[in-house]
């Protein structure tokens, strides 16, 4: 515990800094009125509330936290502690929850209220889990920092939409085709950047994503430019559709019409795709190719000395990651029915990278949790009308989404620098369970 005097001093300083920062942007706000004049709105109470929150938060933190620098400990605690039993059962509990989720949503908030929970939360999060697991192969396993992952998401979405609209292909065909096309683009971006690593690779992939976005904007005859592509055919199942019309599945089965069937279908489709991604990735990890990816992340030169072709290894990681990005894109386009370049900005790449890093590089469960926290959390912030009680009636929590998003990332990275799930499960074991404290063979 810190000395209370010190904690108080720090809290006062924090409050002062917060006030200093919020004074120009929060307390004094300029608006344009109807006659196009700038008017000054003063919001002193909001600025004081913010400083007050900073003061209380730092005071509590200072009183609770031990004085020593604890950030040094996580580094050394690399393997010592066996994983918490909870983490072992987490995948199974999570899976059971996910399967029951749409029914729970209907049971709790009724069929009208469930739409939001299944669509905005469930399906949205599953898309990001799929994207996170795809990028996890590239960044988490192979250690190639890819800041342009959204490019493959875009390639998948546009190729699936264009194939469906122009060639009348069924969704079930465009889905794998979108994955394969995205993987092909993964190889293409991989070829020129094979010699690059770390920062350089990050910059090149960033540029690649921008190129893809600019092509989508400017190649108007094919992509429709800013207007995007609308009227993308919705998926059908055995010829029945989920949209209102003569071949609607509910009418055919004599059920009452409801938008929920479509959402249930999309939710479980996304779940199946995500589970397939999970299965393939965990399998690949225990295969020579997956072990080579991890070895590449650990030490590229050692890989070369062991006869591993680093060129094909890197390309396969980029292609496998891009494949899942493409699948997610195809699903996204058929779910929305409309796509435009707006959906594929750098912000999306940043969010996906953040999910992978926060989840813990290489950890499938960690990435899934991070996707739930990040995407679910930001969606949840739209719901927080409670905050109006603290900050006054005109406060709109949705406007502060990105601010809180950033704050959450900073806090997480300070508390858990290696991500939510930092332990790495070996792909193979000599003994089922290691006896701790066994004498070393020396």
């Amino acid at each position: 515990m810190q000395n209370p005097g010190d904690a108080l001093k720090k809290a006062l300083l924090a409050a002062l800094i917060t006030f200093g920062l919020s004074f120009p942007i929060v307390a004094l706000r300029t608006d344009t009125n109807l006659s196009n004049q700038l008017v000054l709105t003063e919001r002193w109470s909001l600025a004081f509330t913010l400083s007050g929150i900073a003061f209380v938060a730092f005071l509590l933190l200072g009183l609770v936290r031990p004085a020593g620098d604890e950030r040094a400990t996580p580094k050394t605690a690399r393997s010592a502690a066996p994983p918490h039993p909870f983490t072992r059962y987490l995948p199974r509990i999570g899976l059971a929850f996910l399967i029951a989720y749409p029914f729970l949503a209907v049971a709790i908030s009724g069929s009208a209220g469930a739409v939001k929970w299944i669509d905005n939360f469930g399906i949205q999060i599953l898309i990001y889990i799929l994207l996170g697991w795809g990028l996890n192969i590239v960044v988490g396993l192979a250690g190639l920092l890819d800041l342009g992952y959204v490019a493959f998401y875009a390639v998948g979405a546009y190729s699936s939409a264009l194939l469906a609209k122009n060639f009348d292909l069924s969704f079930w065909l465009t889905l794998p085709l979108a994955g394969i096309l995205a993987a092909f683009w993964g190889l293409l971006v991989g070829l020129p950047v094979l010699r690059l690593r770390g920062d350089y690779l990050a910059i090149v992939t960033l540029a690649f994503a921008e190129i893809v976005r600019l092509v989508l904007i400017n190649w108007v005859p094919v992509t429709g430019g800013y207007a995007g592509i609308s009227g993308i055919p919705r998926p059908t199942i055995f010829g029945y559709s989920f949209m209102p019309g003569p071949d609607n599945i509910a009418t055919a089965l004599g059920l009452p019409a409801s938008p929920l069937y479509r959402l249930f279908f999309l939710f479980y489709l996304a779940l199946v795709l995500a589970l397939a991604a999970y299965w393939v990735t965990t399998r690949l990890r225990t295969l020579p190719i997956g072990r080579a990816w991890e070895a590449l992340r650990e030490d590229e030169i050692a890989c070369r000395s062991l006869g591993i072709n680093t060129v094909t290894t890197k390309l396969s990681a980029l292609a496998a990651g891009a494949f899942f990005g493409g699948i997610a894109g195809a699903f996204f386009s058929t779910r929305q029915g409309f796509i435009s370049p707006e959906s594929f900005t750098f912000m999306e790449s940043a969010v996906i990278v953040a999910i992978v890093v926060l989840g813990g590089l290489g950890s499938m469960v960690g990435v899934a949790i991070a996707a739930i926290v990040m995407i679910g959390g930001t969606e949840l912030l739209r719901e927080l009308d409670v905050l109006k009680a603290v900050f006054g009636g005109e406060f709109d929590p949705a406007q502060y989404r990105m601010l809180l998003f950033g704050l959450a990332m900073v806090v997480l990275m300070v508390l858990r620098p290696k991500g939510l799930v930092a332990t790495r499960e070996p792909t193979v074991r000599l003994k089922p369970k290691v006896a701790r404290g066994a004498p070393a063979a020396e």
Partner: protein
Amino acid sequence: MRWISDPLLTVDHLSMRFGGLVAINDLSFSVGRGDITALIGPNGAGKTTVFNCITGFYKPTSGRLALTHGTGAPAGAIDALTRSDLRRTRGANPELFLLERMPDHEISAQARVARTFQNIRLFPGMTVLENLIVAQHKTLMRASGLSLAGLFGLASYRAAERKAFELARAWLNVVGLADRADDPAGDLPYGAQRRLEIARAMCTNPVLLCLDEPAAGLNNRESAELTRLLRGIRSQTGVSILLIEHDMSVVMDISDHVVVIEYGVKIADGTANDVKNDPKVIAAYLGVDDEEVAAAGGGVP
């Protein structure tokens, strides 16, 4: 004198320049099949550069590095291969390889030359066992049939995996690390990491094992253990060993053949005893005046 009668690796007129710096200048020596050969010399003599050329990490400026996989290559076979633009003979017995034409991963996978590094390069986050399985990448990759056979767990792949597993286990026993098999390699003590790196190199099933300062940082007891380990590996597998070492007690103890270089030029070549008494070697190590070397019959031009 196996390095003359039955050479495994023949280094001919090897030169390596980095811009204006000549790291190796017209160096020739050979490594005998089944020998333990030591490459020694003062700091900065170019020893590691020679290793990097042999293992393909550097492309030599000029020279030839010829490796044969068996005895009885017809005379002139290497020259014939050199005149062609091939990297290796295919299907010939014995097989010949020109290492200076091959990329590093092919030198390991096809010519079967394995190496360790001066500053240990393990995969620290992966377990000890995984380090040894990764070393068998090529065999396992072929068995996994572009990962498809492996993805669906076909029996052929599972058998190959089991074999890889057994080989890893055998090497763990040899280097005495079976107890630590499931621990991250980065958590091992220094000496154990050195032994693991040797075991990992041996898992690639090499004909030539190149060790870059294997005794660096080891105490006397560990050095003696290392000597025993290397002798054991050689006698059990018949692998030829080429090592760079500063610890003269290790070098003189286990080497059949010692090559001494200084400033990228060979100054002595012979058995440990020959080299030990060579005035030029003594001069290189103790820093004697040039005149004295000349007087001692070193023949400095």
